[in-house]
């Protein structure tokens, strides 16, 4: 197997007396989709936040392309090609799809302080990204009026702006209809087609077993399973999550 894209060695995170993560080792390879599962409080969110740069680990090392890195915040991680699609999608309903895609990374013209927004370029680029994702989202529509699937497309298009290599998706299918779930899983496949490493955090067994290549299960801050999807089953995963099966 090729060298991992990103590697976590002995990562622990403590909040006072609470040990959210214990000595976790994990490596992610280019182009793979990893399903990250675990019950509430298992440490999924903590791990995601560490990967995304929102939290710094209490101990342990993060190696990106074999080089040790420290993310001081999410912008730092984003600059290194790590993007997050948050559970609530982190969209501004009052702005258009294109505005949301480019939020914080607007295309500007002119020289500071006389810079203005290049709405045309942003709309064109957003339209390209939506086309890549095979979504019918229109760049100049307000996000407020969009369906769950379209909102997902906006949040995912955002991750494609830069040359992102790792996309973390936090419960993308938790609060949407069945038809839209299929839409989102399609979007994840498109990311995979483009060689992006996807970490899919989900409670939904069918989603993980449909799109993921590998399954990682956390329980009480410990990694209890890390195996190929093909070698596992939803029954085993359920057992691992609840603790009925110790490790696998």
């Amino acid at each position, binding site marked *: 197997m090729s060298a991992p894209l990103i590697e976590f060695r002995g990562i622990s995170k403590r909040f006072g007396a609470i040990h959210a993560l214990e000595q976790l080792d994990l490596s992610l390879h280019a182009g793979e989709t990893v399903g990250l599962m675990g019950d509430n409080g298992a440490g999924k969110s903590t791990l995601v936040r560490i990967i995304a740069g929102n939290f710094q680990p209490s101990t342990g090392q993060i190696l990106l392309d074999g080089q040790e890195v420290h993310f001081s915040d999410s912008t730092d991680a984003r600059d290194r090609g790590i993007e*997050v699609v*948050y559970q609530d999608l982190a969209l501004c309903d*009052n702005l258009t799809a294109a*505005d949301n895609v480019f*939020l914080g990374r*607007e295309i500007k013209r002119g020289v500071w302080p006389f810079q*203005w*927004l290049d709405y045309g370029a942003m709309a064109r680029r957003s339209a390209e990204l939506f086309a890549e994702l095979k979504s019918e989202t229109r760049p100049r529509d307000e996000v*407020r009026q969009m*369906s769950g699937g379209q909102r997902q497309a906006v949040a995912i298009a955002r991750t494609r702006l830069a040359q992102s290599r790792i996309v973390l998706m936090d419960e993308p299918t938790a609060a949407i209809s069945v038809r839209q779930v299929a839409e989102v899983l399609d979007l994840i496949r498109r990311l995979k087609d483009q060689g992006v490493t996807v970490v899919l955090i989900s409670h939904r067994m069918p989603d993980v077993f449909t799109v993921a290549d590998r399954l990682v299960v956390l329980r009480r801050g410990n990694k209890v399973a890390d195996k190929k999807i093909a070698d596992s089953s939803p029954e085993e995963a359920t057992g691992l999550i609840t603790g009925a099966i110790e490790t696998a």
Partner: protein
Amino acid sequence: MSTLPPPGEPVARLDLFQLISRWAAPLFLLLLILVFALLEPRFLHPLNVLNVLRQVSISGLIAIGMTFVILTAGIDLSVGSLLALAGLVCAWVSKGGMGDRFALGAAETVGYPVYMAASAAIAVGLIGGAIQGLAITRLKVPPFVVTLGGLTAFRGAALLFSGGGPISGFSAEFTWWGQGRIETVPVPVIIFFVAAIVAHLVLRYTPYGKHVYATGGNARAAQLNGVATNWIIVSVYMMSGFFCGLAAFLLSARLNSAEAVAGSGLELTVIASVVIGGTSLFGGIGSIFGTVVGALLIGVLTNGLVLLNVSSFIQQILIGLILVAAVALDQYALGRRNAA
């Protein structure tokens, strides 16, 4: 033959109600102008029109700053008090001290030049705004409470600074900024419209403006996407302070006097202008165009009713009703947009 849009895609309907609610304030303004013009010929006399605009310009300038604040889902109750404090400092600098504060004649004033007085007023506004913005972001005290504190504290500071009395009598160069005209148009009116155009361009076409809207729409989302939301919040209170300072300078120049009780209750007129203009108190929605319309609407209503000899008490009742009606209409329209 028109083709049907693919299923599942939201259909862009021409919603007549949407259209009306969006243009309700401008339409109502035009209606008011029409009615007053028919009832009272003096209303459209150029002198009266300029008079209305001049009255609107001071509160209108502050309403521009308030629009930035309300777009971030904040509120600035301190504007009237900050105006008074900035006006006094401006007057004090213009006169070069308190020595001849009651002298109405301009000849004997030996103070600092106008640009320094104006800069001092604006500096007071910016500092006042920055203090409040930092209290909101650092101390996590809600804007309503911080600026309510500012409302009291800045008024107190103004009273303390002035010892209760006015500072009057400025040079002709100073008073020109409030009383002068360029081609019959009063200077404050020109400044108001220029400021409105610049503010409009900033909000619509700059990354900063986009970040103001984003902060008001979903502050957490904006922050996760790398928008420095705390800085945006501090900046909008500084923006509000800037316009308080500018308005304080123009008002002092117009009245040839500054006093600690200036701008009492002004915050209510200013907030009413912004809200009537369609800016949502929940943040993220609104425009400078709306605010200008809202300010003009209040100005026209007040002026027209005065010309028609309607009691000022009734004016207040009407403005209150229009305010509530405007927000009710916006809420209803927003509900329909969300349901679409």
